[in-house]
């Protein structure tokens, strides 16, 4: 593994006439949990979209484990070991939870059309292996009892966890999580915190999460990057960032910052 699991170098993205990302730099070490925060419209999701290949950057480069991925197709980037979840549930509606997980193994399974069509023994073995892996993955996140259920029968929080499992099942190097904790109650937040740590510790995956639940970010992240109006305005350990004046200003505005530092 190279020094950084994910490296964003000087990335600029334009939509119409607006610079949504302006010279963004980001270096994430392997096994790190990195938080990405900032006020609404700061460009956080756009950054994830550029990294995962949905948009190509105007300038700059992105490196996944040392290999350049900027401007590549999303499916290519995924195959190189990048996973991600989205703000809305994207479980496949036409599949059970188990089938969703097995679909997550797409890049790790190899049966082509002819082998599958003729159901060669290799294919059957691969399918059984995939099902085993899928069940194991569901157990890891504590959702094994829902294997044969349909995604829409479950709560949003449960769906989200299953999507994370689906992303993890193919052993990606880096996983991008877009507001995974939205709507979680305090109890669930604690569970989620634990889950993220387990993922990092037991799977060795590098995690980057966009979050608005600041408490979670401060607790679980090793480092935090703050984005505002397309630029990185702070980058460091949670405590440093929390007291950073520019960050406070970005969130609260100049007046409140004055009041804050006065107190």
């Amino acid at each position, binding site marked *: 593994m190279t020094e950084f699991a994910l490296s964003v170098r000087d990335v600029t993205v334009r939509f119409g006439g607006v610079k949504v990302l302006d010279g963004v730099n980001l270096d994430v070490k392997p096994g790190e949990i990195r938080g990405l925060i900032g006020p609404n419209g700061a460009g956080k999701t756009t950054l994830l979209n550029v990294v995962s290949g949905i948009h190509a950057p105007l300038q700059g480069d992105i490196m996944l484990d040392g290999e350049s991925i900027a401007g590549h197709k999303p*499916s290519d980037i995924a195959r190189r070991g990048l996973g991600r979840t989205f703000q809305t549930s994207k479980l496949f509606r036409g599949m059970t939870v188990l089938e969703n997980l097995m679909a997550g193994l797409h890049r790790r399974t190899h049966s082509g059309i002819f082998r599958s*069509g*003729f*159901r060669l023994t290799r294919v059957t073995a691969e*399918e059984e292996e995939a099902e085993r892996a899928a069940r194991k993955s569901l157990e890891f996140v504590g959702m094994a009892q829902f294997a044969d259920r349909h995604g*829409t029968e479950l709560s949003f929080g449960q769906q989200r966890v299953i999507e994370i499992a689906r992303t993890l099942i193919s052993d990606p190097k880096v996983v991008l999580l877009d507001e995974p904790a939205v709507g979680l109650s305090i109890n669930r937040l604690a569970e989620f915190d634990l889950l993220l740590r387990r993922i990092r510790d037991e799977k060795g995956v590098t995690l980057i999460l966009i979050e608005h639940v600041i408490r979670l970010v401060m607790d679980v992240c090793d480092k935090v990057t703050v984005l505002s109006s397309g630029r990185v305005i702070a980058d460091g350990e949670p405590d440093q960032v929390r007291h950073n004046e520019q960050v406070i200003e970005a969130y609260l505005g100049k007046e409140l910052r004055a009041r804050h530092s006065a107190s």
Partner: protein
Amino acid sequence: MGLFSRRNVLAILLLLALIVPSFANAYQLFVGNLILIYVLLAIGLNVLVGYAGQLAFANAAMFGIGAYGTALLQVHLSWPFYLAFPAGALIAMAVGLMISLPALRLSGLYLALSTLAFAQFAQWVFLHWDTLTFGAGGFKSPPISFAPLPLSKPVGLYYLSLITTVCVTLFAQNVVASRIGRAFVAVRDSEIAAQSLGVDLLRYKALAFGISGFTAGLAGGLYSQLLNFVSPEGFDLFQMVIQKSTIVVGGLGSIAGSVLGAAAIVIILELLREVKGAQEVFFGAVLIFFVTFLRGGIVSVLQQRLRGWDEPLHGTRGTDAKSAPQLRLDEKESLP
């Protein structure tokens, strides 16, 4: 697995199909053969529309290309049927892919429009490229001889159709229950999530188009022998609507559904043979009814009533329009 599981029901149908020639008259044999041809069409179309979610209208054209391809190879180049038949299917698949590859970047309505345009273009070629296709009047295709087997042409053709259909059905069922099938459904349900799992959209859409083109081509080759006559008439939009009806009635996203739907539709088609206007009204109404109220088709009803009926990739058990697998409108998937 219960008594009425999917496999058992299909097995029973197969047994019935095997003994049909022993008691059927010429007309009934014809209808039976027609059903088999429509099953082929329905399976291919279901893979493309039901599983991969591609709203394409080119299947009738590829059916026609298969028929014309097979028969013309026999007539112009004197190829024997057993060569012309797979060749015709390959031609249909190749043409379908060629035309659809640029269209694969499009989704939803635009794909519908471009495949409709292609279908019209194919019709036009059938009609006007007289030197090749013999134009509006059509032409006769040389009947297959099944010598040295003691089979008359109708019976021999029936069994050939049966073998083809069974093979394609099994193949399709296997494909659908594999990672390829999951990739198709992933593409249908969320292109963005599918990509994030490493599914190459273009490749799998092309694969789905290729499968449907090939099976439609096979169906066309058999059809060219059914009456030993090929003309532009049978490959128009109405034909497309009939095909769509078979998969909607049977069940979008179900191979078994394709079989059942095709059989049902062909039987009704023949019953209404006299009045074309009535046929059109009927199929239109069927389409509307099933799409609105019984989206999962016959298969969804069977899934609910028969406990042993298992369907891969049918996470939902609902029958109404809202709970069945749906296609997203272009890329209006939420991506803030």
